[in-house]
């Protein structure tokens, strides 16, 4: 049994309309997503904005209700988890994209990081402070930070505060939702290196949500590519980057800016070829409803959403 198993997950949001405010339609934010992930690994979720990545992450940690499907964590069914299963709950944490708005500006760093501790553990003030100081050290922030407010930190430092809070309860699985997208490249590198360090030190498993494929490739072992709530392709890093099969994946891969001189001309050519293929064969890859087909294996690790006939 995998560490985390997501089976045919659907999250549909009702659209209200008419004068009676009745449900007239549904947004199929996540529409039949399945994947599994091993302990200690990093699983990447990629796709353009609106493709359902965040909603998938939120459903796993219980912030969005699953309309259908099953989520199994370490052998426990955690689909639409009840409060009674708090112990499992605290093993899964989420880090958010925007280090500017995800921290309460009116709270001191001490209170921000201690909040999850206060919710789940009964610690004395001393114990609590000691834990927060340990966490700050782990994420590379000075002990004076404890009395400061979020606006007194840079973006990279704020993201570290977010990480400190996320690991306060010693989680086993962290869902990192575009954790570096709002940061400058140089700061991005600091945070990525640091996330890898604590992954090793604490034996963490990551779901890493992102749209920057350079970052995704750097961080992840396996990758799922989402489009309009469905998977179009799944595979190892090598499957996806060296052998992309779905036109949507090919387009994403072709769009990565490659600054290596050996590949420069080749890449421009590849991008033009892919664009041509995209325009010519879009209809072959998507059904009449514009949605992806079901996944079919093309190797042990590599799945692609191709039409029945092929």
């Amino acid at each position, binding site marked *: 049994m995998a560490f985390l198993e997501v089976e045919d997950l659907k999250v549909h949001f009702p659209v209200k309309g008419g004068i009676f405010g009745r449900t007239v339609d549904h947004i199929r934010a996540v529409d039949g997503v399945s994947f599994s992930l091993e302990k200690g690994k990093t699983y990447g979720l990629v796709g*353009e*904005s609106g493709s359902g990545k965040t909603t998938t992450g939120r459903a796993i940690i219980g912030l969005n209700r699953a309309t259908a499907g099953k989520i199994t964590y370490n052998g426990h069914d955690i689909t639409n988890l009840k409060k009674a299963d708090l112990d499992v709950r605290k093993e899964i944490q989420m880090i958010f994209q925007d280090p500017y708005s995800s921290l309460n500006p009116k709270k001191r760093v001490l209170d921000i990081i201690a909040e999850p501790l206060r919710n789940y553990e009964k610690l004395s003030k001393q114990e609590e402070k000691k834990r927060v100081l340990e966490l700050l050290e782990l994420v590379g922030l000075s002990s004076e930070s404890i009395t400061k407010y979020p606006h007194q930190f*840079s*973006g*990279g*430092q704020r993201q570290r505060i977010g990480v400190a809070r996320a690991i306060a309860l010693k989680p086993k699985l962290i869902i990192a939702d575009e954790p570096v997208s709002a940061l*400058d*490249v*140089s*700061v*991005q*590198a*600091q945070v*990525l*290196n640091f996330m*890898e360090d604590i992954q090793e030190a604490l034996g963490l498993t990551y779901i890493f949500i992102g*749209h*920057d*494929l*350079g*970052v995704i*490739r*750097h*961080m992840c072992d396996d990758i799922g590519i989402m489009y309009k709530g469905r998977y179009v392709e799944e595979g190892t*890093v090598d499957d996806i*980057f060296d052998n992309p099969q779905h036109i949507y994946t090919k*387009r*994403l891969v*072709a*769009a*990565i*800016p*490659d*600054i*290596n*001189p*050996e*590949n*420069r001309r080749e*890449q*421009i050519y590849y*991008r033009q070829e892919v664009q041509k293929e995209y325009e010519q064969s879009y209809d072959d890859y998507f059904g009449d409803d514009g949605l992806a087909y079901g996944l079919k294996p093309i190797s042990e690790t590599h799945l692609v959403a191709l039409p029945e006939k092929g």
Partner: protein
Amino acid sequence: MSKLLEVKDLRVSFKTYSGEVQAVRGIDFDLKKGETLAIVGESGSGKSVTTKAITKLLPEPQGYIKTGEILFEGQDITKYSNKQMQKLRGRDISTVFQDPMTSLNPTMKVGKQIAEGLIKHRKMSKAQAREKTIELLELVGIPQAEKRLNQFPHQFSGGMRQRAVVAIALACNPKILIADEPTTALDVTIQAQILELMKDIQREMDSAIIFITHDLGVVANVADRVAVMYAGKIVEVGTADDIFYNPKHPYTWGLLGSMPTLDSDEEELFAIPGSPPDMLNPPEGDAFAPRNRFALEIDTQMEPPMFQVSDTHYAATWLLHEYAPKIEPPESVQRRMQGFASMDDGKDGEA
């Protein structure tokens, strides 16, 4: 090639309650017809302030040009009246800013905002303008253009608004297009499309582009020349090849090394430690010294001048002084330099 724009010793400051924020501290660059110049640097390095000084969009009176000239086709536009400047902005220089709402009129239909420029500056009839507007909207990737035409900016999503702004900027066929992080908020595939679109239009109209970004990777395929900014100064400038394959400034090394590239998935990224200086009190000497693992004693005392590396390539670092110790750039950067050198060999071999 003739110089379309020349910026000379530009200094821009802001008066604030805490004192003078020295956002831009003496920069020089020029822009030739048909060329794409990328200005790259971390947030706060002064990129946007530079573009706002050029377009006279600094928030007055706090923001002001302290010294310097900005010559557009030989005329110093820092002396232009607001009215002259407005005309220049409508016709010769257009801008796409990070935040699309700075460029959109919230009370006017999007289609009309695009068509306006076409009618005014490209002398099109209403019907022609409508057709071209639809074409432009489709070009920038806005589906159902005919319907979108009649919508207001608030009915567009963030990404859609930015695409509309690109369409407006391109509509008036500018001599200079200033794009300030135009694709930062957009998805990668759309990013690539918009960059390519800008290049196409440039080829067609021979316009020049100033492309501002914090992400060096984005400019690899679009820039002819690159200027790297740090703490209000240009610290290195050169052709794209100079900057990517023969970088001299440790800050440029840091920017290049911190990018996860396709062959870096196994190793630790070369991160730049710390954060940029406070521009209220810029440090003495080389502003990058506190974050520079290769800093020399002299960096804390004296600001380095621009050293010339080649006809096209300049960098402001004491490491280029003849007495400085010889220092190797980080490995990932070296590898790229070698790759480029060997590619040159290959080219020579073929010829």
